[in-house]
């Protein structure tokens, strides 16, 4: 040990600031999770189809989202749109870019799940007079979610970690708030240890509530 002393009291002084940042992180994580899911469901169906314009759009989306750095995706929405004189706040830019990234990954997760469901489930649903959307809603998706649940939740948490890039465009999320607090106090270690702990707790909280929802939905 060459003499680094931990001073935790500075951290506690800035704790309300960090909590406010954590709340922003939770909001973005949750919203990007929902938005990503809503976009990924039809995209996965289109990908499964293997042809048509919807297939091409979703395939391009998936390719871009999964094969370019998340930070680049954020910059495209923040600085890139700015170049066209479309200026959006950092909150929106982070929300859009994390949703974009989530949708890309979730599409592939969902598509994997869809291919595990026998084709006859769709015929059976349609033969009862259900429309195609009704069949997906009540028969296909509930089965798919059961298969892909873990990967799906992991992507939601991955989205939360991605949102920490918001610091680079001035977002006061958990990382942004921590960065600010440590830059005025220089207690870098302490702040980032506490922030990491908070990220961990949020992730575990997300996992836990997802598990409860899963148990309720599937009675298992």
């Amino acid at each position: 040990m060459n003499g680094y002393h931990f001073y935790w009291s500075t951290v506690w002084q800035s704790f309300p600031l960090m909590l406010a940042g954590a709340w922003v992180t939770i909001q973005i994580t949750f919203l990007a999770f929902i938005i990503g899911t809503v976009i990924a469901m039809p995209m996965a169906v289109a990908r499964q189809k293997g042809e048509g314009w919807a297939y091409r759009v979703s395939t391009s989306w998936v390719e871009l989202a999964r094969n370019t750095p998340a930070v680049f995706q954020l910059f495209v929405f923040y600085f890139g749109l700015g170049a066209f004189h479309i200026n959006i706040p950092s909150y929106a830019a982070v929300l859009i870019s994390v949703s974009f990234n989530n949708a890309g990954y979730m599409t592939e997760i969902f598509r994997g799940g869809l291919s595990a469901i026998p084709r006859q489930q769709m015929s059976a649903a349609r033969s009862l007079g259900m429309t195609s959307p009704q069949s997906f809603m009540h028969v296909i998706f509930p089965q798919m979610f059961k298969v892909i649940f873990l990967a799906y939740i992991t992507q939601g948490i991955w989205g939360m970690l991605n949102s920490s890039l918001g610091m680079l465009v001035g977002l006061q999320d958990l990382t942004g708030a921590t960065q600010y607090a440590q830059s005025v106090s220089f207690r870098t270690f302490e702040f980032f240890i506490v922030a990491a702990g908070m990220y961990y707790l949020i992730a575990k909280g997300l996992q836990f509530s997802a598990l409860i929802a899963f148990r309720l939905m599937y009675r298992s």
Partner: protein
Amino acid sequence: MIEIRSVRKTFGPLEVLKGISLDVNKGELLCLIGASGSGKSTLLQCINGLEPIQGGEIIVDGVSVHDPKTNINTLRRKLGIVFQQYNAFPHLTALENVALAPRVVAKRSRSDARALAQKHLDHVGLGAKAGSLPSKLSGGQQQRLAIARALAMEPTYMLFDEVTSALDPELVGEVLETMRLLKAEGMTMVVVTHDISFARESADRVAFLHQGEVCEIGTAAEVIDRPQQPQTQKFLRRERQASLDMLERTVA
């Protein structure tokens, strides 16, 4: 009445149905028999519009199934279908399996749909299994569940596609029993089957399909006991031999 008029069906270069014409009259039980690949399943799937057709027309109670102006989802409520692989919805209990379509298609209230579902489960002898998931049911029970699920839409016609073929021999009886019950109640049924003795005893008429065409059609006695066409005679000889072999294996 179901009127099938010169229906042609192709899968790419393969012509599966080569101009089939056939009527199904109200209240009758029509059995479709024929070798594997003769197009029996395809014909059933065409009747309720699960498969598009490339020529001809199918008319159900005056409505053309493949006319783009037809609301196929409304029409399908008249046509129940049961498949060889029961296709129960594995994430739903038996009761929910049956109640789903009445709720989302027929727009019945949740409690109405459940009461209706219970009634139909009772009807096929599964009343006590309402709360079970399909994975906890035997093959025969799952197949009866599939029948109840189709009946809950209160169809005018029931289509059955080799519904006993995937079952262990000792479970076949209970499903056939349910089908006989439906017939006794006057349901109009089209039954694809390899079970010649079921066709002989239950069918009003039997149609023998051969390579995508109706080769021979008539009463069960005519087609099964006194087949006129050499293809029909050959097919029936083979089927009898196959069921004899099966019997021997079961006894041995």
